């Protein structure tokens, strides 16, 4: 480990230990909502830049860490739960995630940021904002559920195949029968033509006498 890496590691450890053992533990002072979501914001921005496992994990951790602080704010708490759920889903499904999941994260965080920073926002507007996010979240959930609908079972496939095969057999039989009828009719028409030609010859012979 080079000196720079070691220095960074030591700094990170000291910062974490200072946070963990900080003196405000007995009575944690309330952190303004604006400041408390800064960490979450940086995680969301980093996801916007590049989606990787660490960022998604951090998103879940940060959303989880903010839950107690927003426990009394039902609307913000709902948005945090949504962020955690979508983050957890993307972390689990990774590249197989629904393409709209990342948009949900961005949108939910933007709404959360509005709620946390705009003290003047009316309650009705706050509710409307969250209702919109809930509706979009439900829609995404439905789309994901649809993606997850079980594939056609092997039995069903075989039934389909069998039906298809039978239909093919019926059609080919029909075509064979039709061609047989056509052949038979053609030969009869030929015979009739020949008979007609013979009768015509006989008639011509009688006229010439």
């Amino acid at each position: 480990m080079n000196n720079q890496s070691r220095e960074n590691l030591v700094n990170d450890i000291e910062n974490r230990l200072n946070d963990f053992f900080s003196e405000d533990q007995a009575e944690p002072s309330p952190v303004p909502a604006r400041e408390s979501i800064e960490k979450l914001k940086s995680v969301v921005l980093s996801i916007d830049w590049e989606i990787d496992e660490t960022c998604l994990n951090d998103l879940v951790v940060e959303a989880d860490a903010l839950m107690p602080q927003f426990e009394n704010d039902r609307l913000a708490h709902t948005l945090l739960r949504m962020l955690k759920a979508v983050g957890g889903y993307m972390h689990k499904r990774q590249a197989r995630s629904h393409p709209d999941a990342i948009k949900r994260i961005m949108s939910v965080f933007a709404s959360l940021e509005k709620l946390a920073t705009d003290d003047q926002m009316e309650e009705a507007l706050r509710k409307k904002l969250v209702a919109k996010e809930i509706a979009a979240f439900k829609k995404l959930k439905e789309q994901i559920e649809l993606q997850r609908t079980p594939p056609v079972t092997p039995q069903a496939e075989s039934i389909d195949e069998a039906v298809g095969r039978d239909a093919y057999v019926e059609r080919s039989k029909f075509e064979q029968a039709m061609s047989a009828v056509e052949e038979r009719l053609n030969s009869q028409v030929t015979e009739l033509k020949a008979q007609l030609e013979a009768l015509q010859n006989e008639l011509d012979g009688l006229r010439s006498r």
Partner: protein
Amino acid sequence: MAVIHIRNKEVQIKIVYVGPGRGGKTTNLEYIFSKIRHRILSDMVSIKTHGDRTLFFDFLPFDLGQIQGYRIKTQLYTVPGQVKYNATRKLVLKGVDGIVFVADSMEAMREKNLAALNNLEENLRFYDIDMYANFPIVMQYNKRDLADSGIPLMDVQTMDEELNGKLRAPAFAGSAVTGENIIPTVKKAISTTIVTLQDQLS
């Protein structure tokens, strides 16, 4: 040796508080627990004898959070200090990643401090650990508060020369009863342990 789950990005480290009997190891852990109890999910486990002495060990696990993407789970242990419980001490030291040596500052405890340090060296050697070869150790000269009660104490410099002359480990003069330098001791123990672990892995 620390337990490292690469897949879960999780590191579990074990730090053991050792030192002479009645030196304040358990009080150290109790103080730490009192400071962090509201933010950890786990409890402190103590197994004591009738006379309130540590029979087996004290155990305080907690999740420190993430450092450089890895979740650090820390386990603090104490060992019984009494000489007769050496088998237990040896057992608890199995898989140790870092040590806090809690020395008793009372003059009367001078020999016992040295005996406990020698015993630690022997027990670590049992696990092929040379405590003088960059093994993470933090020294704590405990019970400094007793000076106010008129109890004769060794001065810190003397203790440092006698106990830490060869080790040259980070050292703190403190008091587990008043909490003086208890948190800095555990912080130093955790940081040196993680840095040493990182050195070993890289």
